[in-house]
């Protein structure tokens, strides 16, 4: 599903060059729930952003579902982000002036669904994360855990092939983190959703199938936790 070969990302030039990724290679199969771990500055977020087409690699190849996405023009990258991947931000990244439902269904409308269809899709997604009854609330009226679940609903409503999550529990307490991870687990187990998640917390790894560890921009371990 995802094939990454010798991926490099350098920021800046000359002496000030920061080598965020120094030739990372791995493959992720469909339906895997993968955790990416590593210390701060190890290149996890850079890797995830490149895979989610939010950033570009300096060098290397990466294909998603057999499609070489590195050099896609921006319009196609945008379409790819809309239809193929879901991205969950550490800080939820919800639009504050939109209700929970609007935050979700704006993407369905972008895909071309009618307002009614888009709204139903949003309610379905919010129901999956247990927030159907709070569809009319704006982000400021939700707790941190609820905001993150709305962000998950937004990411899964379009039924993406892959879900990328950048430390989705970083701002949540243990109870809320558990709720979020339970949603991921259910999506993965019930719907076969491929999930790539960055985390710092070791206890989160009990939810995943595989843990990739980065250090100074290099892949240092790739551990499968259970057979799929």
């Amino acid at each position, binding site marked *: 599903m995802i094939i990454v070969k010798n991926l490099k990302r350098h920021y800046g030039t000359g002496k000030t060059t920061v080598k965020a990724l120094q030739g990372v290679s791995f493959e992720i199969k469909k339906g895997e729930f993968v955790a990416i771990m590593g210390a701060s500055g190890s290149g996890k977020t850079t890797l995830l952003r490149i895979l989610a087409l939010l*950033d570009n690699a300096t060098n290397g190849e990466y294909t998603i579902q057999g499609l070489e996405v590195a050099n896609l023009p921006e*319009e196609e990258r945008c379409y790819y982000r809309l239809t193929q991947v879901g991205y969950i931000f550490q800080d939820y990244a919800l639009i*504050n002036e939109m209700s929970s439902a609007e935050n979700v269904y704006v993407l369905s*409308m972008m895909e071309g669904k009618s307002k009614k269809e888009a709204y139903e899709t949003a309610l379905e997604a919010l129901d999956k994360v247990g927030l159907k009854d709070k569809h009319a609330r704006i982000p400021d009226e939700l707790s941190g855990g609820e905001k993150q679940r709305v962000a998950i609903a937004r990411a899964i409503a379009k039924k993406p092939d892959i879900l990328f999550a950048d430390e989705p529990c970083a701002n949540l307490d243990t109870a809320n983190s558990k709720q979020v991870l339970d949603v991921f687990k259910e999506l993965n187990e019930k719907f076969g959703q491929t999930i790539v998640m960055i985390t710092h917390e070791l206890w989160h790894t009990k939810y995943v199938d595989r843990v990739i560890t980065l250090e100074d921009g290099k892949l240092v371990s790739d551990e499968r936790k259970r057979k799929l």
Partner: protein
Amino acid sequence: MIHDIRVGALIAYSSIKRGNKKTLAFIVFVLSLIFVNLVFLPSMIGGMTGLFTGMMQDYPYGDIVIEPTGDNTYINNADNVLKKVRAVNGVRAVTKRLIAGASIEHKQKVVGVTVTGLLPTEEHEISKYPYIISEGDFLGELSRDEIIIGAMIAGTGFGSEIYDNLGEVRAGSLVDVTYSNGVKKTYKVKGIMTGTLELVDLNALVHYKEIEDVYGLEGSKATSIVARIDKQGTEDEMKDKIRDVGVKEPVFTWADKSESLIKQAMQSLGAIDYMSKFVSLIIGAALILIIIYINILNRKKEIGILKAVGITPRSIVLSYAFLSMFYVSFGILAGLVLYFSLMFYFQANPVVFYETMEIIPAIDNLLLIQNTLTMLILSVIAGILPAWSVSKESILEAIWGR
């Protein structure tokens, strides 16, 4: 594209519905002031133009004026022309006038003037001359050896300090008038007229017969035939009708004549009007751009997020165009309320110019439509430009500033 429009509209709608209402009110208020700035001064200038052109109708030209052909000094057989013009349907009143150059002397003070010979009774229907007598009386049908003098040359009216004057001539004073043909006559001042317009107050009026006698004119001659019509705005149509009844002399509307006479004044006002509009437009455009740009900069992260989740830059740009159009539309509405409030105030309390000239601002619908459209177009540009610029930034730059 239709999806982009729908999504753009949804983003804009949410932003308006749940955005900060105080900020919205402030933006609308500033935009309303920009709109008023665009339309207020032109309205005042329009009022001033209306005042001047109205004076052209009220004194020298009426609605329609007929003048001698070619280099002729006089219209020959003016009574015949009057008869033809009177027969035209839509002509309310018509009269003939004789104009002559002269100098007036009083206690060794001499002032050059234009003396208009007119038929006093007919002038009541034609001009405002009979109604602007500030001292004494207007001429009568039997007025001979009597003269009406403008306040500025009499030395009693506003503007006397600027122009040469006879020094406190009053009704009842005697003045000597020397016409351009050398004939000198002594007149008793029957009245002083105050029109607060140089064209009136620097001149003198006598009975038509006086000029006729002084110049020895026979066969009913006139230097102009002045007509008033029933319906304002139909001057061109009436001009054609007058030609159609066989009047061979050149026929002009007051606008034709005013154009040449006060063209310079109007051009000056027009230049001021044009410059004020241009400057207001630049200021307006800059302010709209600044307001919308700051608004967009505050939402840079939001734009990055929208892009990151797959919303097209086109939708984002459209959403800001809609948002900007909404702000400006409300700004225009508020501006119209403010503008009409000001107009009603100034119509009730006109700006006094030259002490007696009251300038009532003119409400020009075309001007309002032009400026409304201009502001709407500006709003679209002001919304699109910064949003387009931000939407072109990388997602990382927009969300995380790097």
